[in-house]
């Protein structure tokens, strides 16, 4: 189950050591060492330190994912490609989920440009996009963000694609940490379709189709 985490964790120790260790920035070395020390044993994901757009310092797994149903995507403030549309689309998802966001379902957006997008920039973005409370925008050290991106499966094996911000992932990672059930939805998909996938991993939801309150009452 946790192969990927172990491999990511072990990456530093085994191979980087022999091949590339000397060429790594100190930053990554630090991050790898930290992961080995404190990585959560039950998670797919690196338990890196992040900052929220509200300036809160959090551990990715311990504070944001553990025991939760989450929906996670990547974006950056300066993005003029898919991000604005994705953010607008996910805002619709947030609105439709209503009170569930922040209680049962947790939404996170992680910047792809952590060196530029500091918490205050993300806060401005949140205000500008009129994001409702309960959806956190996250930044951190570039090395941690990169490891997190790989941990979340948000990469392309072709480096030319992987390193091109214009072709960054359009996936929304959707999962339920309680039963270790992970999947994804296209972040640009119809909001109702995204909610279907969230409802699928949410054990409390019997009907996975999105229904407004009235429709749900009708179906009984």
């Amino acid at each position, binding site marked *: 189950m946790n192969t990927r985490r172990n491999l990511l964790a072990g990456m530093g120790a085994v191979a980087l050591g022999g091949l590339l260790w000397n060429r790594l920035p100190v930053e990554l070395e630090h991050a790898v060492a930290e992961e080995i020390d404190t990585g959560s044993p039950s998670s797919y994901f690196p338990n890196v330190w992040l900052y929220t757009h509200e300036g809160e310092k959090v551990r990715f797994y311990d504070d944001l994912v553990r025991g939760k149903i989450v929906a996670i995507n990547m974006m950056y403030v300066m993005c003029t490609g898919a991000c604005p549309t994705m953010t607008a689309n996910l805002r619709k998802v947030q609105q439709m989920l209503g009170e569930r966001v922040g209680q049962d379902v947790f939404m996170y957006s992680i910047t792809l440009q952590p060196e530029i997008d500091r918490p205050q920039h993300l806060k401005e973005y949140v205000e500008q996009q009129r994001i409702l409370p309960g959806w956190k925008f996250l930044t951190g050290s570039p090395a941690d963000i990169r490891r997190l991106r790989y941990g979340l499966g948000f990469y392309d094996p072709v480096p030319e694609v992987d390193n091109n911000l214009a072709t960054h992932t359009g996936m929304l990672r959707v999962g339920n940490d309680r039963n270790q059930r*992970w999947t994804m939805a296209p972040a640009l998909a119809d909001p109702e379709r995204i909610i279907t996938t969230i409802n699928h991993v949410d054990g409390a939801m019997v009907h996975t189709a999105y229904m407004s309150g009235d429709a749900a009452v009708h179906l009984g």
Partner: protein
Amino acid sequence: MKAKFLEHCPGTLKPGSWKISVKAGGWEPITGEVEEKESRGEESRRSFLKLGAAAIAAPLLLTSLGSAARSRRRPDDDEDDEDDDDGALLLLLLPPPSPATIPWQIELPTAIDQLQPVVLDPPPMAVANTAAGEAGRAPHQRWNELYETPRQYPPVHYELSAKENPAWVFNPAYPPQRIWGYEGNTSGATTPGPTIFARYGQPTILRMHNRLPQDHVGFGTPEISTHLHNMHTASESDGFPSDYYSVNKAGPTLATPGEFKDHFYANIYAGYDELQNGIGDPREALGTLFYHDHTFDFTAPNVVRGLAGFYLIFDHIDSGDERDPSPSALRLPSYPYDYPLDFGDRIFDQNGIMIWDQVNPEGLLGDKVIVNGYIEPVLRVAARKYRLRLLNGGPSRFYEFYLVRPNNVVQTFTYIGNDGNLLPAPLFNQYKVRLGVTERADIVVDFSRYPLGTELYLVNRLTHRPGETRRPKDVRAPGDRLLKIIVDRYPPEQDLSQVPAVLRELRPLDPAEIAAAPVRRWDFDRANGMWAVNGEFFDPQRADAKIKQGGVEVWELFSIDDGWSHPIHIHFEEGRIISKTVEGEEVSVPPHELGRKDVFVLNEISSIKVLLRFRDFYGKYVMHCHNLIHEDHAMMVRWDVVTDPNLADQVNETVAAPEEELAGPPVEPSNDNAPRQRRRNR
């Protein structure tokens, strides 16, 4: 412990026989020479593994590695391993190889487990019996006509339960562990599940219970939607991806959850309405089908857990009785000498437990192949003819099978059916079968040619780069031995089976009909880190095509990139390949693909033109890549058969786009869901 295992497997895995290879971009055996290369092997671009290895390092090292130069493929570059020094790191994202297994310890049964009919209580109904716990499906189509009204044979009922088996042993080297499978008449779920033997003209109900552990933790989701792969069936019984159910949950296209769901397989041939003969067109008969889970977003993990089984269907031609006195009967080798074999790639952790990575966008390529649920099993056969039905059950690996003697000398056989459908005539003296994911091949092997005691191996010579799920690499002898066959007895009765020179008639292709058919184009491509069709991702509530019932169309499947192969599966009806192109040049269609198919392997920079009909039923269906990773990453489209012609798409009745327009926009217009704009953002 390990040393003890290794004693049992000479010539397979030895300590020190694996190395981390930068050249191969992963783990590779230290020995292993290239004895042959397939003609298109040189087409390989650098594998994603090499690339992916670089990807980890790339943000740090890209400049120093000079990626731009590396990305150029040299013309006539037939040594594809030479530029691998950029691949130093991705191998670290790969799990290490599965631990060594002990070959040829587990014996497959000499006859396949055949599901027996039951009396269903409560009896099946046209409308979902939600009061009794049935999931809220749409009513069965044509129930009165095809179920209630007497047909060629009285209705038959089967019952299966998707269920966990906590102690499956893939191989004696691995501990007992949980799998998901199907439980039939006897206690205990198996993978594959029991085989259903069906008959054309016999209405068949399969009541599928979901008894998977609802509190399951880990990969796989305990909801099911069971697709009967290549059955000509009504939508509500097709196992549409979002028709998934459990007692606790209803997929978005079901009204209510349920503990079971009845699937009504009318067992009519396609062409029922067209021929008005009460059974359809026997030229459209299917033969080797399989049922498998198709749950939206979770097909790969659920199939990897084990949710698959065979469904074989017979008629007056392929009658399933090699002693059939009827002049119409082919008398092909029949049960117990008719034997399906399901091959699937799996990978195991260092404790021998099967693993799956739910968030790896490339999935996990199995380095062990399970054959009917076991790694390196033995099949004991009688010295006579057998019909072997080979299925690539996925999730991602492609195979090229050979039957060899222990000294690796290749043996011949007769190829009689592809994708489960009998060919018009057998292909004699064949020696290899290539299968993309969920392609099938029926072959007849005459074991009477061998003295008792002869040992043969079914080997796979098609390789993938370590961990690469996007496409196969090349053909290398001697290959991996997947199944040992021992000719160990004479048959109790004389072998009266035969392979006649004519099998099943094909409906002739009508050039005028093809020329008049609307052409619909489908581009299979990558977008936003996922897999797209016409730039779109699957939405089970959005039909991207609406086709009038009874319509005839030409579908052009396009792949304009060169880094992957897509085995494209089209539900509902079989297609005929009209033409194929590679890099814009028309290429010949191999003989085994000249029959009817339901999986079309779309290789790099190629197109396939397929003639399809949409007859007898209506509703929602899908087309998707059957590389299960690509399917779960949204490479699937919903298309609907509609009865009201006014609701059908008006498709351009033009010929295909010329090749220079390969990268052009999709031709396919869709008049529904207009507000959902088309997005393409690579």
